[in-house]
């Protein structure tokens, strides 16, 4: 447990020092301020403003950053893992679990730190057509997508030895899966489908059952990706 906690702290510190994370936060915060100013001056609808911010800024940027940081979590430090960590009294489970929790924790912390003030400001200065319940569901839905993307990326980083291959696989497979789900009329499972339906969600026009379906499916997928990544890593030769 002590090793897990220390590795968790170490990985979070590493992420906090990462230039990619710093740039990501700056690129999220800057446009957020712009959206608030525009919404206040143009009397835009709160639901549309929030959905536009997610679709134009938060989703694409986070997709890139989360994919890169999660898909390089394990294979990006392969030498250090073998020489300095797993050759000592650390279990593989503790190591990979620390990666999952640290990365998902940091991604969610950044997400919450950016979106909560944004929601407050938009509701205050834009035309308030959103419901609190709808906003909570909408933000939870986006969070579940981020968690799944992180879990999938970390699982691939445990499987692939090559960092570039795992990052590209995450990026390509998420884009391709969106197209496949749309083709199969399973829009609610595609990231683009979920994001495009956010205005209705923020206004509270989507039923709880539909929201739960998305959360449960992406939650289950995240758990499966995590379990598969852990199982694979425990058997992997380092």
């Amino acid at each position, binding site marked *: 447990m*002590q*090793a897990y906690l*220390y*590795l968790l702290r*170490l990985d979070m510190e*590493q992420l906090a*020092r990462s230039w990619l994370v710093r740039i990501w936060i700056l690129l999220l915060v800057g446009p957020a301020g712009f959206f608030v100013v525009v919404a206040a001056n143009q009397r835009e609808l709160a639901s549309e403003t929030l959905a536009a911010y997610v679709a134009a800024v938060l989703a694409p940027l986070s997709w890139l950053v989360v994919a890169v940081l999660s898909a390089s979590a394990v294979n990006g*430090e392969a*030498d*250090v893992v*073998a*020489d*300095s*960590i*797993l*050759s*000592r*009294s*650390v*279990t*593989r*489970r*503790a190591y990979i679990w620390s990666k999952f929790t640290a990365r998902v924790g940091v991604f969610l912390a950044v997400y919450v730190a950016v979106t909560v003030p944004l929601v407050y400001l938009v509701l205050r200065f834009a035309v308030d057509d959103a419901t609190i319940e709808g906003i909570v569901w909408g933000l939870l839905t986006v969070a579940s997508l981020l968690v799944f993307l992180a879990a999938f990326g970390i699982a691939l980083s445990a499987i692939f030895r090559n960092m570039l291959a795992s990052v590209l696989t995450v990026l390509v497979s998420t884009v391709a899966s969106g197209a496949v789900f749309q083709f199969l009329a399973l829009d609610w499972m595609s990231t683009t489908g979920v994001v495009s339906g956010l205005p209705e969600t923020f206004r509270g026009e989507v039923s709880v059952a539909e929201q739960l379906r998305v959360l449960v499916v992406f939650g289950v997928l995240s758990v499966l990706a995590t379990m598969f990544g852990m199982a694979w890593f*425990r*058997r992997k*030769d*380092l």
Partner: protein
Amino acid sequence: MKLAPSSLRRSLRAVRAGESANGGRAQAPGEDAPPIATELAGRRAGPSYAIEAHDLTKIYDNRYIALNALNMRVRKNSVYGLVGPNGAGKSTVFRLMLGLQRPTAGEIRVLGRPMRAESAELRRRIGFLPTAPVFPRYMTPISYLEFVGKIVGLPSERAKIRMTTLLQSVDLSDVASQRIEGFSTGMETRLGIAAALMNDPELLVLDEPTYGLDPPGRRQMIELIRELSGRDRTIIIATHILNDVERVCTDVGVIAQGRLIYDGQMAEMRRLARQNSITVEIEGNVASFERRIPELDEPGSVRWERAGPEVRITFLGGGAVTEYLKRLLELVERSGVELLRLDTGTHEVEEAFLRRLEEDRSRSLLRAPDWVAEDGAGQPGTEEPGRGDGSHSGAA
């Protein structure tokens, strides 16, 4: 490395005794953790072998055989040198020993227990120095050793005492707060040694410990290993530098193509290597000298190889080397040749090692058990002197 050996010894004694290197005082007042010496004394009497490998096999991707049914036993409290050319399988043995890889077949037991990927408790008793260790570049020696102390479960205060002592022992105190990214290979190796010793391991696994060190650094490392060996600690060293092995190891194993082709005590290896073999370099009528070599012993008991002015004579009889030496000097006198050099042992271990490899190559169908003794000692009677690549050889 500039640290004086006496200072080094004092520091290491302090590490072993769980004391501060500063004057060798006792455990800091108020510290709850027991001194490391007490911990050492408390180690249970376990099996007589620190490492036991049975038919250990590792095949990568169903293509490359790294280890081929390797059987190996390392006595507890010995300093074992695992010697072999590059790609022989030394590092694979170490990775299996630490649970970093899984064997394709066979088993490896470390300190009496099977080693697996999840054997974290077992690894708590092991210290490991990889070849060219890789560290998080943004860390400093202090933060790195603190990190190692945390993940091996050392209490914070004790970790700090050990860290200070070890940094001094490996002569990194001056750069302790500098980032590792600017370190030379030698400095990284020394930091790796300090990290491997943080948990005061019962088993110390050193993969090429002299890698990247300059000659004084190498000498200090050998000295360090000597100091670390002894009561309650087994050290296993992988290297291809035989000189290092000869200087510190009590036992030696020769590995080639994934098999252990020799396993025994260092003294035995030396004896095998130097068994009544004398090399002379002469000037004058070398042919006449060579014709008279059979006179040195009973018929069939002398074998020799000649390469230019150098003649290497091996006595197969049971006589003492001093007696053969005396006869050889008389022969030199009788033959009227001038003796330029006489050698009874220098580099012989290296030659013996190369001979083993050569024999193994030429008898590749034979398996290791044919000439690895059951009790871990080599069987001198089963080996033949190698012929090398001398231009001329003979037997009488």
